[in-house]
């Protein structure tokens, strides 16, 4: 067993407002630079939709992630390190500028400086690449709230999971629906970007599992860009190097939440530590699609198990990290409750960020002239969901419908449990039956409710303090470091003459 710790996140999609504040916070902190204008390390997508870059989930086009390559084995779908080397100057899988968008700005200053004339001046849109007036044809959030749904949402690759009848109905009033999907780097435990980098510039940090890209070593081959199935590494056209989400590790190290997390208005994000067995990665990644989620869950270890604690300490996991893992909200959502699921686990990178699927309104049942929406049950039932569970399964469980049903059922049961407390109209044995069917005790239901609806910041943000001493030890003698901190030059200045 090779125990590693991972700072992991849960996104509660039922709570997401779709405000994109996370995207803005990230943009302002990290990618408000030349060459990075088009990058959105954090973005929020509307589902159904094709997202950013357009149709990123279509791996036939982009060739990201891993595929099974025989019993118990996986290989990069394209651009293996060696294959990639062979084709290093030709990478047809790379998304082009049009797949992202041509960043633009407005000549705001024209509003101040325009000469007197017979019509009103405006601030023209101009390309941030060419500086010339631009016709805006794409953007980082182009299909927001079903914008252009006949072109975008209707071509969402996940709709392939539906029957033709369901698919035809998706855009009728009776079934029309959408939800939001915030996305950052998944900080995978089997990262394709790391596997594909010819320069070894990408690595996964030992202490927290954050996947980072060493700017000094990057040679701009962009294999990471094509191999990341989530399209969360980006090429900076100004520096000639690639960049990606760093989970705001400088903030994490000083006890602050990542910018996206910190700014989350809907309070949908939970950050915590999970311990996992890194020896299992290959075995897990090679499972059948529908078994992947369970296998990944099995890879995550119980931080309260004395044997795991012993092995973790042996593996050099600090005690504070283990303690933190024991209080982890992520562990609860993912492992204890089975409510949170990885995004596109079938890409086999073992993403370490998880999503609680959304509850959505029930179907309409009109006769074409009149719209009706009625329900025998108080809350939605899975069979009458606007969004077919198959769609969610395609996104969050490698097609395993049972896991989606399990999670949704549990959330609905929590609502009934609370309904009985707040209103008291859940008749007789009905509640007992609902809870039993959802594999839930009243106590657990209450705990889920509390973490969903009433969490304070410190309930949602549970990460260990940084072990600064270890970071220092890696570079220098701590005692020497202590004496050296303070006034003076860290490196002697170069003489100019």
């Amino acid at each position, binding site marked *: 067993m090779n125990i590693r710790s991972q700072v992991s996140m849960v996104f509660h999609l*039922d709570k997401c*407002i779709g405000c994109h504040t996370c995207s803005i916070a990230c943009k302002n902190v990290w990618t408000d630079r030349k060459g990075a204008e088009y990058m959105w390390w954090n973005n929020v997508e509307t589902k159904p939709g094709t997202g950013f870059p357009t149709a990123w989930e279509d791996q036939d086009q982009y060739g990201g992630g891993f595929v099974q390559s025989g019993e118990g084995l996986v290989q990069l779908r394209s651009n293996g390190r060696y294959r990639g080397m062979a084709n290093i100057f030709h990478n047809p899988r790379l998304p082009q500028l049009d797949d992202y968008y041509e960043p633009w700005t407005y000549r705001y200053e024209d509003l101040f400086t325009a000469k007197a004339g017979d019509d009103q001046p405006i601030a023209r849109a101009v390309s941030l690449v060419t500086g010339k007036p631009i016709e805006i044809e794409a953007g980082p959030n182009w299909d927001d709230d079903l914008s252009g*749904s*006949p072109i975008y949402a209707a071509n969402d690759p996940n709709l392939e999971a539906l029957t033709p009848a369901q698919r035809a109905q998706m855009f009728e009033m009776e079934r029309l629906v959408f939800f939001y999907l915030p996305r950052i780097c998944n900080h995978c435990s089997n990262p394709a970007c790391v596997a594909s980098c010819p320069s070894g510039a990408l690595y996964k940090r030992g202490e927290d599992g954050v996947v980072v890209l060493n700017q000094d070593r990057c040679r701009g081959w962009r294999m990471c860009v094509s191999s990341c199935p989530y399209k969360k590494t980006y090429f900076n056209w100004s520096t000639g190097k690639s960049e990606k989400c760093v989970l705001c590790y400088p903030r994490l190290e000083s006890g602050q939440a990542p910018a996206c997390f910190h700014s989350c208005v809907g309070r949908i994000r939970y950050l915590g530590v999970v311990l996992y067995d890194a020896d299992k990665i290959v075995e897990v990644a090679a499972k059948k699609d529908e078994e992947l989620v369970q296998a990944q869950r099995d890879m995550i270890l119980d931080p309260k198990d004395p044997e795991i604690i012993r092995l973790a300490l042996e593996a050099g996991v600090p005690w504070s990290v283990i303690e933190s893992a024991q209080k982890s909200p992520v562990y609860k959502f993912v492992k204890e409750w089975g409510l949170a699921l990885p995004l596109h686990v079938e890409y086999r990178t073992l993403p370490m960020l998880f999503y609680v699927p959304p509850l959505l309104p029930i179907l309409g049942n009109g006769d074409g002239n009149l719209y009706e929406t009625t329900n025998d049950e108080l809350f939605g039932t899975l069979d009458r969901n606007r969004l077919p569970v198959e769609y969610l399964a395609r996104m969050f469980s490698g097609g395993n419908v049972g896991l989606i049903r399990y999670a949704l059922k549990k959330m609905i049961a929590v609502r009934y449990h609370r*309904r009985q407390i707040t209103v008291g109209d859940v008749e007789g044995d009905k509640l007992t039956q609902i809870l039993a069917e959802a594999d839930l005790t009243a106590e657990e239901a209450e705990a889920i409710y509390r973490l969903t609806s009433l969490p304070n910041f410190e309930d949602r943000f549970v990460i260990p303090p940084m072990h600064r001493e270890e970071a220092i030890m890696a570079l220098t003698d701590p005692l020497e470091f202590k004496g050296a901190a303070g006034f003076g030059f860290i490196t002697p200045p170069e003489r100019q003459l």
Partner: protein
Amino acid sequence: MTAVMGANLNMTRTPDCHFAAEARHNGTKMVVFAPDFNQVAKYADQWIALHAGQDGAFWMAVNHVILNETHHEKPSAFFLDYVKKYTDSPFLVRLEKDGDSYKAGQFLRAGVLKKYSGEQHKEWKLLIMDASGEAKTPGGTMGHRWQEKPGQWNLKLEDPTAGSVIDPVLSFLEKHDAVADVRFADFAREREVTRGVPARILETEEGPITVATVYDLLFAEFGVGRGLPGDYPKNYDDEDAPFTPAWQEKFTGVGRNTVREFAREWAHTAEKTGGKCSIIIGAGVNHWYHNNLIYRAGIVALMLTGCVGKNGGGLNHYVGQEKLAPQASWAAITFARDWGVVPRLQNAPSWHYIHSDQWRYDAGHSTYGGGPWTGDMTEAHTIDINIRAVRSGWLPFFPQFKENSLNVATAAAKAGAKSDADVVSYVAKRIADRKLKFAVEDPDAPESWPRVWYIWRGNAIMASAKGHEFFLKHYLGTHHNAVAEEAAEGNTEIVEWHKKAPTGKMDLVVDVNFRMDTSALYSDIVLPAATWYEKSDLNSTDMHSFIHPLSAAVPPVWESRSDWETFKAIAKKTAELAKRHLPEPVKDIVLSPLSHDSPDELAQPTMADWTKGECEFIPGKTGPRIAVVERDYTRLYERFIALGPAVKKAGLGVHGVKYPIADFYDQMIETGPSVVASGVRCPSIESAEQASDAVLQLAPETNGELSYRAYQDVEKRTGVPLTDLAEGSRHVRTTYRTLQSQPRRLLNSPIWSGLMDGDRAYSAYTYNVERLVPWRTLTGRQAFYLDHPGYIQFGEHLPTYKPSPLPKAYGDLNTSDPQQKGKWLNYLTPHGKWHIHSTYGDTLRMMALNRGCEPFWMNPQDAEELGIVDNDWVEVYNDNGVVCTRANVSHRIPKGICIIYHSPERTLNVPKSPLRGNRRAGGHNSLTRARLKPLLMVGGYAQFTYHFNYWGPTGVNRDTQILVRKLEKPSF
């Protein structure tokens, strides 16, 4: 249970939208009403996809079911008890004989009974039938509120005159003298329906009077027959009779089963929880022409099921957040009341409708559609009713006269007026003799034009400028894209008609702004303003229970200044220049309308019009109040920086609550910075922090002692114990500094109606329900029935449904050629994503997330018919103007409507319009034109009495129709 309509929490309540999601997991059922699958619909258990603007029809039918099932078939004891205590349902209404049948008239006044003939304000005291069979007047009415004898203005079910208990009879169904054939209006079909209403005949001083209870009238109005004769629906499936679940189908497009189930679940939840059903409502409803009826239909459901004044229940109104919580002290400074000044406060919709000459393009409200009943208001042109409103003291209007108001005062002096009272008499006489004309009577005369316009904290030329192109034409006299033809000529009687409409009325437009928005671009002078992070200020609304400070993280950039410093500088310069232009103190005349929360609420029991000789002109009674104000412009600055002594003497108050502050005022001088102004030492408000501190120290919401005193005041008026509400926080004093260390929760205050002890969440009217303090209405109770003569005339005395205005008469598309391959759509402008109105929306970030523009959302089938594909340029136009933007083709939008979210600037990447002579196209308000609903102008009658920012016609624009076509090649 929560019903959301006309509000999109994700967009407009982003910071607390999470509560909606969280409540769901706490067992709350959430139902969203919206024509489009909007952002908040993702949280819904059920999305009710009704036709735009038809929410009222749905709720009318919900009320039909609620009344039938939970008030009649299986009456809920909780509901009945609630409506008895807290609504006007037991009050007696006169049934007026009209031909062979009856119409519902006004409330029966206490004065008709001999036993009440000695009562003060007996015409404002009303009657309830007691279980004993005797009609009695309960306390708590408007008459009790303003009578000399205190302590009777409360909701106890007692007759304060006799000192006896009242057991109200809700319905005469069991025991009546007659079943009266009462005629009700069916506006959808412009006809009357006659329905039997159980009535009693009271022997009075005036002889026998036939009366019914409001409760029985409600049953009849909603069509719940209870075995009575008349045009009642047979059952829920009766499509013809208002207001059954089947009836509403043709308006809402939603089936009857959905209504029935919703109503049952609503009533069931309310009964089970003691009233925890709520409606979240917002600007999506607020801007329809008949918005008041849509609101009312929902509110009726809340009242019938005991949900108002309950935590977890009630109407949560997500509009109008500009109102401050510490209102009394803020208003004293803002409106210079600390120097004893009567401010000139104007309701903006009337002002712009008239001054920007939009009334000239309006054929008048009566052409939009009518009902079976008519009267002097229903037939008059909108502007004539607004003129009547000003002359009768219902609404304000500035400028006031066709003469300079300073000259009016000078003329009074010349004519021998010595005292202020003499001046008032002189002015009143000139008004009464029709010598001194109101500016509103002749708004297009040059002497009536507004000339100088300061725009502050608003985008008044674009975002809020309904009829924007008319602003450009008539205010600014610049280019515009309106092609509307004038329609008022010949339809008006009172207003002075000028053949040619004036253009360019404004001489100077000054904008205080931190953005180069449309208003700034069109102004003569832009004063750069500090943003929120560059100044000291307070932030609170009437909808949150917290008060926040703004603090300067950085100094105002470049030349910008905080608002306080900007206005201070203007005051200083003005005072300096006044030494030359107006060196001596001068007298000014200020007219103000009859005022809410004052005895003015008893001013006009009838709508008698002095200009028609129906009564005399009496200032403050049959017409506006007339005040004489002394102005010393040379002292403007020294008074600006001082909190004047008038508040020390008079105390502070608002909403009819008063509290003394003299000791705190003195303490401020003693312990804080002070200045001498007009020879008096005053607390200094020279800096923004000091002004903020003055607001905080003198408001009951932030000063516990003042909260206590305010409750003492209401305790005296009502005769019910209240000071205990302030006891626990009597010691609390909030200063700007303490807020900077942590935002604070507001204290309980009688100025607001929620109770917030401990951690209790604010919920409006819990104060009234739990402490028996009356609502500020005629009956003192929540009103099902509005007996104002104007309401009766318009058939809105009872909750009802009126269809949207007739598009042809509404006149958006008379000139624009419908043959230009355009498609006719209903144009909606709900509040949008990533901007608050127009603020923030034009920043690069938000533009990047929003397709680089504020697009035109439309349905795919509508688009296909016009050959439009997603992201094509489109030209959207009507008689009012034109917008050129990109199409956003989405299944989210139903056929027949379109959306441009409120509110884009016309400054960013807007092309020219080939349809309108290749001029620059406009912004979303280029397509709108203001119309006013005249019923919302009435005044001087109980709750229908003017209060700035609370009462007056709303600016409506949801009923707008547009045409859209593809714009092949944009040119810039």
